[in-house]
């Protein structure tokens, strides 16, 4: 029997003194061997930046293996935990330093929270070249991170033109 899930609520405007912590967005130290940047902007239905959003990523290591190491909250500079958190700045921009995810069709699993967003959103930032045939042809590009010299850019549009494809997993109730 499946129990009814406790509903979500918005992260609100005041998470900024509670959820961010030193090193939250540095899964690996910037500039260390293999480090890549994953960054982008979060925008609303009018294309304006969302300066009070929180992005979390969860990913395998470059070998594709799921990471089972603790230590995300107090990073030791050597242990890759596969999980990180980044707040958007006044321009709606977030940035993380991490490793390239491995696996058959590699992607960063992404969770989005924001003031004004009543529940979290899930999406994926696929590495360039992934076969995204399972997603609608006219929208699948929103799931692709763009390659840059220092890593990847992944913009998130909450609403409107170029609205990001968000995901519903089995067991989540439908909209």
């Amino acid at each position, binding site marked *: *029997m*499946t*129990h*009814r*899930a*406790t*509903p*979500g*609520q*918005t*992260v609100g405007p*005041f*998470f*900024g*003194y*509670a*959820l961010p912590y030193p090193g939250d967005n540095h899964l690996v130290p910037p500039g260390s061997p293999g480090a890549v940047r994953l960054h982008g902007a979060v925008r*609303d*239905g009018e294309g304006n930046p969302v300066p009070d959003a929180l992005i979390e990523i*969860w*990913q*395998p290591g470059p070998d594709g293996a799921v*990471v*089972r*190491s*603790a*230590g*995300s*909250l*107090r990073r030791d500079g050597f242990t890759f*935990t*596969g*999980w990180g958190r980044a707040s958007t700045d006044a321009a709606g921009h977030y940035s993380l330093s991490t490793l390239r*995810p491995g*696996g058959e*069709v590699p992607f960063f*699993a992404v969770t989005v929270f*924001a003031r*004004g*967003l*009543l*529940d*979290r*959103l*899930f999406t*994926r930032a696929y590495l360039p070249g992934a076969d995204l045939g399972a*997603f609608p042809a006219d*929208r699948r590009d929103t799931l692709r991170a763009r390659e840059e010299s220092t890593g990847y850019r992944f913009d998130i549009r*909450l*609403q409107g033109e170029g609205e*990001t*494809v*968000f*995901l*519903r*997993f089995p*067991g*989540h109730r*439908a*909209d």
Partner: protein
Amino acid sequence: MPTPSSDAPTTTQRQISDEITAFGNARRGTDLAQPALDYTPYRSSILRHPTQDPHPADPEGAELWAPCFGHQDVDPLEADLTIQHSGEPIGERMVVTGRVTDGDGRPVPHQLVEIWQANASGRYIHQRDQHPAPIDPNFTGVGRCLTDAEGTYRFTTIRPGPYPWRNHRNAWRPAHIHFSLFGTDFTQRRITQMYFPGDPLFAYDPIYQSITDPADGALLVAHYDHDVTTPGWSTGYRWDIVLTGTHRTRFEPDEEGEA
């Protein structure tokens, strides 16, 4: 007494309450996602909710697992929000405890729980909080803990006060504690708010009412539990949290007793 600033919102509580009623009626008897993301009585949601249906996807790879947190991440003292400064915070000292389980009723062991909240007078430490209520120098309002092997979390804190906000004229949030939760797989990630029983502000609050099914809304309300109180020291509330179902069919051996 401070005068409201000139850009104070003009929408009245009556208008918002009418919208709350209309939206609730429109969704009655449906089995739609809770909360409604397109809940216009919460004005900040208007430009921030997706208009396309979420795309159905099966969790893959790392999504079948959740990040691990361990004792190196969280000091046990972080679960007591009343000992973070040199003095005692003002307000009703209370214990908040409960179990985190998945949709199949299994405990979520050794997992991170984060909370944040206003102080007893309804004021956050956050610099953007302009509510002219006193800051308590002995209360920050941020806590963390790991669930135990049975999925139980436990915090000692102060009962937060309700606070005004700018959604509409004379808008007040019911007293609440923000909770951030992880499950045993990535798809169970949840951020929500815990409320207190019988709060007279529930009916007026578009964030609480965005959960249009009252049976679901009730799941966010803690209950007073005399067994959780500490004699001569604190009151106690119990709030159990159910995450969505997990997608792995059985626990892997390395999950048992780790962390």
